[in-house]
């Protein structure tokens, strides 16, 4: 629920400027296997596509990840969610990610890039001790083959690059049912106005930066 709400006005201008620079830097020189989708109108909503690492059950899959910056960012860590369904011990059913970097080991000077790399590393080396998905945790410890097989199956179903469009639609639904309903109810004129606003905001943001 809280993921669909924006906190732009609660961040200081320096924080907004820094996050925008980081995102643009990652867009120009992307890290390996990570693609950032910049949302000009909402800096606190950061989405990225992470390629499944080779040699893992998640290989050949593309996973959509969402970061939500809190109002106290960077003092408090952002919340991370998998928008694509995934079978992983450290990912809850609603997609919430549990990782030490985003919990007790958080430091204010860590950047967005570090967080995304941490999430990618989590796909390589799961941590069964702090498992949000208990079933996956047990299978990882007791029957790795079954875990691997199930993870690969989920990857083939939900994280196929060919179905990226379909996945996007699903992600939109996951983003928020009420918001999509509202969008359906809105007129096209409103959508056009929003687009115009987005363009204006992009220009404004670029000028400010």
């Amino acid at each position: 629920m809280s993921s669909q709400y924006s906190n732009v006005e609660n961040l200081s201008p320096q924080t907004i400027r820094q996050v925008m620079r980081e995102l643009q830097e990652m867009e120009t020189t992307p890290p390996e296997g990570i693609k950032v989708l910049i949302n000009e109108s909402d800096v606190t909503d950061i989405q990225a596509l992470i390629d499944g690492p080779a040699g893992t059950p998640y290989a050949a899959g593309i996973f959509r990840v969402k970061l939500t910056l809190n109002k106290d960012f960077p003092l408090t860590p952002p919340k991370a969610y998998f928008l694509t369904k995934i079978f992983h011990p450290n990912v809850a059913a609603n997609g919430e990610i549990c990782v030490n970097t985003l919990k007790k080991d958080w430091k204010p000077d860590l950047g967005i890039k570090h967080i995304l790399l941490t999430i990618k590393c989590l796909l390589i080396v799961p941590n069964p001790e702090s498992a949000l998905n208990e079933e996956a945790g047990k299978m990882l410890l007791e029957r790795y083959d079954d875990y691997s097989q199930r993870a690969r199956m989920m990857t083939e179903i939900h994280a196929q690059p060919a179905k990226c469009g379909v996945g996007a639609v699903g992600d939109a639904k996951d983003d928020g049912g009420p918001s999509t309903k509202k969008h359906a109810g809105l007129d096209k004129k409103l959508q056009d106005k929003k687009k115009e606003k987005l363009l204006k905001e992009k220009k404004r943001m670029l000028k400010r930066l």
Partner: protein
Amino acid sequence: MSQFNFVSDLQNALIMDGETRGPAPRWKKKLEASLNGSVNTTRSVLSVSYNTSFSGVQAPTKTPGKSSEGKTKKSNTTPSKTPGGGDRFIPNRAATNFELAHFLVNKDSGDKSDEENDKATSSNSNESNVQASAHKGDRQKLISEVAQVGDSKGGRILCYQNKAPAAPETHNNPLKVVYSIKTPISTKSGSRYIPTTSERILDAPDFINDYYLNLMDWSADNIVAVALGSCVYLWNAQTGNIEQLTEFEEGDYAGSLSWIQEGQILAIGNSTGAVELWDCSKVKRLRVMDGHSARVGSLAWNSFLVSSGSRDGTIVHHDVRAREHKLSTLSGHTQEVCGLKWSTDFKYLASGGNDNLVNVWSAASGGVGTATDPLHKFNDHQAAVRALAWCPWQPSTLASGGGTADRCIKFWNVNNGTLMKSVDSKSQVCSLLFSRHYKELISAHGFANNQLTIWKYPTMVKQADLTGHTSRVLQMAMSPDGSTVISAGADETLRLWNCFAPDPLASKKAVSTSKGKQSVFRQSIR
């Protein structure tokens, strides 16, 4: 014997005349024969002897003596100057000498005429006439001497006069400059004194630092309601008493506070999406009204109607008198509604949201609440709009302030939906208030100065900056008498600013207007 004396005198006079004729050619001969010095001396002795023998005829003898002295002076001065060798100085001195020469020449001609006159008078053979003529001659001589001296002095005076006017002309210029410098300093615009330091500072621990909430309000009964953490406190501005109204359960908090116009009932929007009504005089909760699926961050009263704006983007009108309180739901925003204000004449409802929109809803004709479609949509702001204020002396004017990416204060004419003015305040605008006593408004700002700014409306000239908050100013509220503004900052302090204190002359008018307003509200309730 006396007769013989007269005859002898007459004969002597005749003889003297002959003698006077005699020395004249002798002097001339002396001048012609300058070689013989001794002969001249002897002749002069003879003339002296004649003079001493007859004292009555001294006057005519004096005149040739003086003339001779002048001539000798001339002869003496010229040879002395030439051997000095002062060629450069000679022309100046010669010029002055020439002037004297001219005067002396005029004297000689005068003297000759005087002598002729004397002769004529002597022919008349009157002693008195002779004496009178002598006196006249003396006077003329004196006058001529004085005239010569005066003329020469006059010439010098002319020289001084020529120099004098130049100096004051030069001196006048700097004086004019000094005068011109002084004039702009004296022209100062008369403006009222605004104290730029806070009158009082209250502690507000755990004040939620969230741009989208409205956590403070000042009632008509002079009570300030403020939400701190999960509690709601009431502070009596008159007595200074503090009492806790309520405390929410763990995790819940108050998202917005709003007093009814009369001041006894407080509406609290909480984080679960409900609107609670509290009777603050009895410290009792009256009712709870649901209607939202997310927290309620903004509230606005219209007599018995309370409008709530929520994070789910909807605005709900609640009739507090009816069992079925939910009158209508407005869906004009796609994101959180963080600003909500009824106009001073209660004809319009203005709402600002996190989707950078300002919607103006017109009051339903005949019924209660507003139309379900907005009358105007203002999308000029580039950031979330939370600060909204209606102009008290011009009810169709709405002021809105944008967030971090916008920083502008814009003025709208809701009659025709046009943008009248836009001012860049250089900072995030968190709250706006119009003054009732002056045509001014005050704005609360965030990063970087965390100041409150007072603007003169409609010129929007900045009057004063009220500084003191060390973090951004989140909320402002006006006292019921319109003289004091209380501001809540993220630095967990409440500061009171006595920036709109009315003049004693205008206070009477203010009292009368406030009475009028109260009566209007009471009538509306009945």
